[in-house]
């Protein structure tokens, strides 16, 4: 059960949107999983099933002009920042109508117009980029904030250290949001980091650090609201660490030898972020059960039509191969 206070500013309509978006993310990735298994999507992909609350909650706080940097596990971030699932699915199908015209694929979806500066195939690659985007905001007085997603594994890259130090000495408007899903590809965070919380590293940079339940949508919203407000006021960055869990293997399929079935079951049964949200909505009498079901169904239909859109879309022409290398 999640008990965090629901932000008073959150309207019933917004609650509907959030619940719907969590399902949209889940169905998107489950669909991708299915098509991957069938060989209809190629290459590689990383699914965020089980982690829907971090993307949804953190991006909920943002204004339109705010920006994000994302990761290889980025479909959720992209959807939460307002991307069109049709064009996302088309990208996974390597079609011309995709966000990257079929050239990027799962790991490189970007939606620069919506402020998504891109997923990233390089672990930790996006963290310094977020700092640079925040630098622009500060130098040009643009007022936007940058939300920087990265994983527990990425926190061990040198880029993490260098970026947090820079952002803190320059007091940049950036929120470092670590999605700690307990593992890198296989490396357990318990073996790869010698402290309990990555969020505690904030003190080394002289910035606030906050460790939260990442599967509790309202706790994500609460922490991000505070961090974004601080950044917008010009007081500099915050490090948030959200504890969560990925349900699927690291990429495509993997044997998951590095974790136990019991652990997986615990997170699926006890800590499903969507179920936790639904329980709370029902117990607080915020929306009727039928309405929740309708929102879920609507999300499923949207993903089905995204697949249809992707399947019907044309492949890029061979002449596009050498386009867009230079501006």
């Amino acid at each position, binding site marked *: 059960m999640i008990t965090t206070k629901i932000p008073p500013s959150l309207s019933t309509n917004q609650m509907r949107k959030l619940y719907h978006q969590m399902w949209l993310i889940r169905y998107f990735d489950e669909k991708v999983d299915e098509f991957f298994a069938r060989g209809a999507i190629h*290459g590689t992909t990383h699914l965020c099933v089980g982690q829907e609350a971090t993307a949804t909650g953190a991006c909920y706080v943002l204004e339109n002009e705010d920006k994000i940097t994302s990761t290889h596990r980025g479909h959720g971030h992209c959807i939460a920042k307002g991307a069109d699932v049709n064009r996302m699915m088309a990208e996974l199908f390597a079609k011309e109508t995709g966000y990257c015209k079929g050239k*990027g*694929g799962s790991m490189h979806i970007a939606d620069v117009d919506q402020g998504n500066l891109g997923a990233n*195939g390089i672990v930790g*690659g996006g963290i310094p980029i977020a700092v640079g985007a925040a630098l622009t905001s500060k130098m040009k007085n643009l007022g936007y904030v940058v939300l920087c997603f990265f994983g527990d594994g*990425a926190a061990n890259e*040198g880029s993490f250290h260098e970026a947090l130090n820079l952002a803190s000495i320059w007091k940049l408007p950036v929120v470092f949001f670590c999605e700690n899903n307990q593992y890198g*590809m296989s490396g357990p965070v318990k073996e790869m980091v010698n402290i309990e919380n990555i969020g505690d590293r904030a003190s080394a940079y002289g910035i606030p650090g906050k460790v939260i339940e990442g599967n509790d949508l309202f706790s994500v919203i609460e922490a991000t609201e505070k961090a974004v407000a601080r950044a917008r006021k010009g007081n500099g960055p915050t490090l948030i660490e959200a504890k969560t869990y990925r349900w699927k293997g690291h990429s495509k399929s*993997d044997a998951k030898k590095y974790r136990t079935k019991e652990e997986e079951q615990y997170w699926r049964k006890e800590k499903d972020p969507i179920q936790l949200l639904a329980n709370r909505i029902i117990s607080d009498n915020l929306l009727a059960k039928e309405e929740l079901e309708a929102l879920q169904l609507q999300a499923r239909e949207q993903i089905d039509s995204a697949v249809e859109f992707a399947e019907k879309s044309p492949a890029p022409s061979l002449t596009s191969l050498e386009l867009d290398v230079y501006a």
Partner: protein
Amino acid sequence: MKTKDMSYSEAIRDAISLKMHEDEDVFMLGEDIGVYGGAFGVSRGLIEEFGPKRIRNTPISESGIAGAAVGSALTGMRPILELQFSDFITIATDQIINQAAKIRYMYGGKGKVPMVLRTPSGSGTGAAAQHSQSLEVWMAHIPGLKVVQPSSSYDAKGLLISAIEDDNPVIFYEHKLLYGMKEPVPEELYRIPLGKAAIKREGTDVTVIATSIMVHKALEAAKQLEREGIEIEVIDPRTLVPLDEETIIASVSKTSRVVIVHEAVKRAGFGAEIASVIVESDAFDFLDAPIERLGGKAVPIPYNPELEKHAVPQVSDIINAVKRTLQRGEEV
């Protein structure tokens, strides 16, 4: 010698295992090389065989683990560092280029850095721009490094054993599409010297110098050309540094025609170096046609499979280049 059918990845694992049994200074470090078995399964079983002290599963810290390899090598160990994709060498390059490659020379011939950096490169998996590059020429440019690119299981095992025994930093480029390819490989420990090319097929009409996966494409081209009565000689340098110039020059002096093919971007690719070696040598006098150089288009590797295929040379490109060089010869 007793042989066994081994895939390229099994041959690599076998080389590591044999050397680790023989020399306790040899150890492995890298991301997810433990129970996960490495990003491409190459180290599968090694942690069970040697334990976590010698098969060291590391955090995602390419710069740190490269430096740890350099430092441990400098002080008496023989580390084998696995980077999950050769693209990530970008993060480790300070340690490789400014440290490992230069330490011995800078220190006036004192100290040595006997490490191997193994890493998969190349396109063809749909992993797109940041996981598909062929960057070997960067490393080949740096004095102090050796650069190896095996194209078969047999070569991979023998070359890796030599690389581990070498007293210098060796960058060992594996190709992702070769991991599953099988051939008979001796079960025992054997060495292929660094700096010795292999003539993968003998021929009289055109010399095709191919590296890594392109060796297989060249051999496929050879089969098709044979039906038209054209006999190409396929040479695999196997190591870019040191380069077996002698074998290349001898072949060109015999055939008088050259096609060079690699997957890496053609512009400033290693093919330019090989072409220069040829024209700077006595083989220049034997050339009957301009050298044909094939390489990847000057684009990041795209995700769409058709685009991806067209970004790098294919069998038909090699066939056409061979025919072009034969035609050019006739006009003269």
